[in-house]
């Protein structure tokens, strides 16, 4: 075979190889963000002479105000009232709350995966009542690679959160507090006055909800489990009765777990075409929901699959008031 032919065939073969395999995309190399964040935090602590420890979860914490004799959290005593200020490490502030216990206090439930950022959930477990801690939370326990322009949160942000633990309660204490609020609500609005507020007075159901019939339905036409129904509903908060946070019409089968327990309990008392008011303590509603901050980024966090949609509608431990009509 001529030398020219051999050269020609070689070039042909190489070009075929290039065509077949040269058009693939190469993957970017991955960076271990955890190691990067850990170095940034430890360098920051060292540079600023901060006395901080590293927790097994990966967060760093500094005890600002200790309280050796403060009430300790337990598996059951884990409903926390907190005050916090949060910022990006060496960056801007992104959120803060009231410093005293009141209607706007932030209540969260620690240790059950209901707090975003997760690093804050881990850090709160270390605190006693009355203590103030500062947490340095790496991005993989915060918002990961999520970024926002308002507030300004760059991707892979490390958070610096100062938290004061104001109160520790359990479920029973929380419920007792809600019952007081509900009874005050009933008294203030004279819901037991059947003349100004027909039809019936308020009834406490065995499951803990408060039920008030507003208009009659078809006598004895109540529902049995599994029966299909059409429900018109409008939900408000106990402390904001004029602004519904959710409303609509829903077709579902009664008592099949499709709706929150409180609504099913109230509907069990209703007759078809009846209208009623159902006051639902948090234990029969959305309980601890999911706490997150900043509040303005709720939709973004839902799209990122950080939190469920109901967390943007119902804050933790909210008492709900549903005006329902069974059609």
């Amino acid at each position, binding site marked *: 075979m001529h030398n020219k032919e051999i050269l020609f065939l070689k070039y042909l073969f190489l070009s075929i190889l290039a065509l077949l395999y040269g058009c693939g995309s190469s993957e970017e190399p991955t960076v271990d963000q955890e190691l990067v964040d850990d170095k940034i935090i430890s360098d920051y602590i060292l540079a600023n002479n901060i006395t901080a420890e590293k927790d097994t979860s990966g967060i760093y914490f500094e005890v600002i105000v200790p309280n050796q004799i403060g009430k300790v959290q337990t598996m059951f005593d884990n409903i926390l009232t907190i005050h916090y200020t949060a910022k990006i490490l060496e960056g801007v502030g992104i959120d803060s709350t009231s410093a005293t216990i009141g209607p706007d206090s932030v209540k969260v439930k620690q240790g059950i995966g209901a707090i975003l950022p997760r690093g804050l959930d881990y850090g709160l477990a270390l605190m006693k009542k009355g203590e103030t801690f500062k947490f340095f939370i790496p991005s993989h326990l915060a918002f990961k690679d999520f970024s926002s322009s308002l507030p300004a949160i760059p991707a892979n942000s490390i958070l610096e959160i100062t938290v004061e633990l104001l109160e520790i309660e359990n479920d029973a204490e929380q419920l007792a507090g809600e019952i007081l609020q509900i009874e005050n609500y009933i008294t203030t609005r004279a819901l037991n006055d059947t003349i100004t507020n027909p039809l019936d007075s308020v009834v406490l159901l065995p499951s803990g909800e408060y039920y008030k019939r507003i208009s009659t339905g078809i006598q004895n036409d109540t529902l049995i489990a599994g029966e299909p129904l059409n429900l018109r509903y409008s939900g408000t908060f106990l402390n904001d009765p004029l602004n519904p946070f959710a409303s609509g019409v829903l077709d579902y089968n009664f008592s099949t777990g499709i709706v929150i327990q409180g609504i099913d309990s109230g509907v069990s008392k209703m007759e078809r075409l009846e209208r009623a008011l159902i006051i639902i303590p948090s234990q029969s509603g959305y*309980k601890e929901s999911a706490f997150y901050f900043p509040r303005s980024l709720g939709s973004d966090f839902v799209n990122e699959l950080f939190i469920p949609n109901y967390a943007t*509608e119902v804050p933790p431990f909210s008492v709900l008031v549903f005006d329902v009509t069974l059609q």
Partner: protein
Amino acid sequence: MIKLVLNRIVVFFLLTTSLFGVATAQEYEYTEEEIYRSPIKKILNQFSFTITTGYGRTNYKHSLSGLYYAQSQTQQLLVNDDGTPPGRLFDGVSTWLNNPILNPGIPNVDSLSVPFPPINNPVLNPLLQQQFLILKGDSLGMEYTGKGGGIPLFLSLRYNYKKFRIGFGFMFERQSLKKLKSNYADLGVRDYVPNFKSSLSTRYFLTLGYRFYDFWDYSFAGEVQIGKFNGGKNFKSPLISRGTNLNFGISIEKNLSEYFRVIFKPSYDLNNYNIEIPGTGKSIKYKQPTMFYQLGISITFPEIPRSPMKSDHVQLKHVITDPETGQYKEVRGQPIHKRQNPKVGENHRKLFRAKRKNKKKLNPY
């Protein structure tokens, strides 16, 4: 020099007169007209048969313009975009790649909003996928792309006239396509996995070509194939419509003999189809161009047969008397994959002794 030539003429004259008594010109025992040549073979010699196989790399692409994309944990659907987003009930089209099916009355409920129940460990819970993720195809410029591979088999017959070639052929291809990827996978849009693993597609075509360059034993010809593509049993939906299929290629041929050549042919196949999306009045255009790399052989029908006598090892074309018919017939001395009338050593590139079968023989001759 002139003296030498004259001497040779004298010698020849003396020889012929001594042998034959009379000086005569050399005579053959037959004339050109007496040699029988099959008219059919002569016509067939204008035709070449080609068979090739190889590999085809197909790029798939289609856009979701004019449609909404709706994705749940178990479904991927297309919904008509009439200006309003899908409501609580919508009609969705599934398997839109090859067999679109209208699914009416799909409930669109966000089961993680009020008044549906809460979930345990809500933060970063894997169950946070909403009932349907709905994206507007136009706003995002949504599209799906993917790559598939196939093993083709091309068969063609062509008529050769000087450097032009015209013919027809068939192609069979076993194509496999694993998945199509969305350009919005980072939003959680899943890959589209077809409801078939592979398909046997066919194509028939007319071919036009021109041999534009010859280099030693190599020939280069440009060819265009115009035809009709059939996607196979997985693409039988009446909602599919296809246009004309075009293929452009360069045939690189190594001529081993007058009749036999080995072919390498890269070619580019333009193939599209439309699918009507039921319930929307719209259709999607699917592009699936393919780059083929073919390898095969092409055989031109010989105009003369091989010598029927097995003992006949003459390497040149020569005339024999057919033992059966008694006719004078011109036959080939070489098989079709070797050159006819070769020069010394042309068909035997290796020395006889250097061939593998003869290397260990003391006397291979």
